[in-house]
């Protein structure tokens, strides 16, 4: 039933409905409210699970890995430096094809250290081999978390659910929370074929010689590509039983014949949607919400950008020395279609900088007056930068 509830509390409730048996986490803003709520459920007897209050994120990932490989559904969550501290384990979990769900409450990594929201952390581990799904609002965060367990356990690939820190985790909004029965009908009990069992002893984590290593990496890469279908299937199956869908790999709003498109990940999508209402006089715009960053939906992007003259790619992180991350990958995807749109790639809202509604008209004005922008910081205030550093 619909409730006005804080994002983190809703996510925690969603996780609880998925009946995880082992939760291991280490405190870090802005993830803490999720784990605090889970701890409360356990203390009040509403969730029977082991809460392992580990001594670092490195051990959080290691503990849930241990639990998953021993036959229990496990869950963890972290942000920024915490994600990077568990990087080694993330690669290990993906390579070993262990089904796990992790919520990344997106936060800038730095340096300089920042406690605020951008997507530098999840982008930094995009090559770890995890499925990465981004949520545009807290309703999607709830639904995606539940779908993630099913996706992970069917594809035997770990899923990272990326939720904007503070902007979503600490924001109270109307959210439709499913019931336990509904989630039980959607998500069968945890079953992991390769879970360790003395009755069928197997060894996991073997050293692989050059003779087989390439094939192992190929299998992992193909699994991720094939996972795209499972992501769409899970979204559709969820929509059938509760009437809500998150858009599978990617979704868009706005007139089909629009000539300009804006592609975003995460909560800025809602701001642009409201902005369109706020500024009716501006040119017609197609708003594209990229949900799956990994596997990167090349075909879906090509189809969504069909007929566009200009595509603005707004992202909340960058690769220093290269420029946009999503921008580069979108350009690569669009380079295969006959008349690709001009791609304008901007980083925006880094380290929690506010993205007001006026960002939409300013964006459209910028691309009208200048040619395609390979990459730039859209809300940069150069007067704050020393001469020699410009």
């Amino acid at each position: 039933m619909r409730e006005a509830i804080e994002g983190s509390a809703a996510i925690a409730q969603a996780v609880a409905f998925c009946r995880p048996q082992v939760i291991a986490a280490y405190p870090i803003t802005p993830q803490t409210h999720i784990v605090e709520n889970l701890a409360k459920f356990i203390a009040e007897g509403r969730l029977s699970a082991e809460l392992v209050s580990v001594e670092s994120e490195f051990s959080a990932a290691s503990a849930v890995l241990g639990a998953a490989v021993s036959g229990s559904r496990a869950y963890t969550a972290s942000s920024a430096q915490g994600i990077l501290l568990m990087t080694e384990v993330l690669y290990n979990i993906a390579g070993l094809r262990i089904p796990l769900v992790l919520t990344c409450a997106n936060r800038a990594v730095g340096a300089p250290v920042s406690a605020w929201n951008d997507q530098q952390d999840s982008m930094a581990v995009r090559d770890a081999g995890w499925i990465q799904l981004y949520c545009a609002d807290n309703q999607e965060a709830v639904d995606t978390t539940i779908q993630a367990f099913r996706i992970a356990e069917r594809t035997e690939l770990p899923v990272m659910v990326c939720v904007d820190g503070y902007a979503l985790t600490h924001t109270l909004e109307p959210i439709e929370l499913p019931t336990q029965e509904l989630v039980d009908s959607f998500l069968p009990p945890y079953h992991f074929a390769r879970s360790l069992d003395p009755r069928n002893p197997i060894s996991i984590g073997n050293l692989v010689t050059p003779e087989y290593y390439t094939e192992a990496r190929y299998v992992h890469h193909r699994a991720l590509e094939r996972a795209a279908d499972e992501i769409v299937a899970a979204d559709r199956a969820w929509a059938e039983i509760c009437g809500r869908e998150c858009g599978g790999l990617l979704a868009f709003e706005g007139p089909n014949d629009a000539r300009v498109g804006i592609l975003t990940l995460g909560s800025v999508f809602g701001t642009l949607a409201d902005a369109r209402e706020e500024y009716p006089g501006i040119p017609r715009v197609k708003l594209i919400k990229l949900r799956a960053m990994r596997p990167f939906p090349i075909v879906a992007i090509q189809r969504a950008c069909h007929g566009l003259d200009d595509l603005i790619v707004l992202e909340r992180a960058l690769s220093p020395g290269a420029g946009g991350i999503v921008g580069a990958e979108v350009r690569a995807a669009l380079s295969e279609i006959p008349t690709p749109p001009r791609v304008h790639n901007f980083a925006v809202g880094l380290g929690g900088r506010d993205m007001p509604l006026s960002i939409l008209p300013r964006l459209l004005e910028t691309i009208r007056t200048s040619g395609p922008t390979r990459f730039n910081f859209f809300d940069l205030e150069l007067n704050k930068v020393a001469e020699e550093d410009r």
Partner: protein
Amino acid sequence: MCVAQKHQERCILMVEIRINGRGGQGNVVSAYILAQAAFASGRFVQAFPSFGPERRGAPVAAFVRISDLPIRRHCQVLHPAFLIMQDEALIHVPHVTEGLRPGGGVLINSAKAAGEFATLPGCRIVTISATRLGEQFLGRPIPNTALLAAFVALTGLLPLEALDNSLSRRFRDATLANNQKLVHEAASRVDAGAWKDIGNA
């Protein structure tokens, strides 16, 4: 299009409120209670704290959006129509009333008369000694409930009963009853509807 217009109710496109308080004094809880009350009375809502570490005593803010239309934006409240000041000493904090819409309403928890806060330019001030009311009804110097009740009465944004409902999610039996008595007493301390015209942003 504005759904409310069809029912001839006042069409509220978007009302934005900032609650100024101090770290550790339930500033965010007040925002959540107000939003949940508005939600219970059939409106779309959003509420969030000022993002960043909250230190006991440090001036902080929390924000509430109430609208007849779904609120999809996730950005800061820059020009609130109303301010709620949890304690009058906050007036000394530089630019604590920054961004307030001209002619906006400022509700201050103070035993002093509104006139004594004349320094705040271009806005309509109402005071209520919410801390004392808190002591009187709850036995503890907590101004939050009294301030919310006064605010709801002043603006008529939502019926007082919605506030009671929202409180019942957090408190039970004696504490709930005291809070509810406090709500009606605080509401009676301000002239209801005085701010009805503000906020049609």
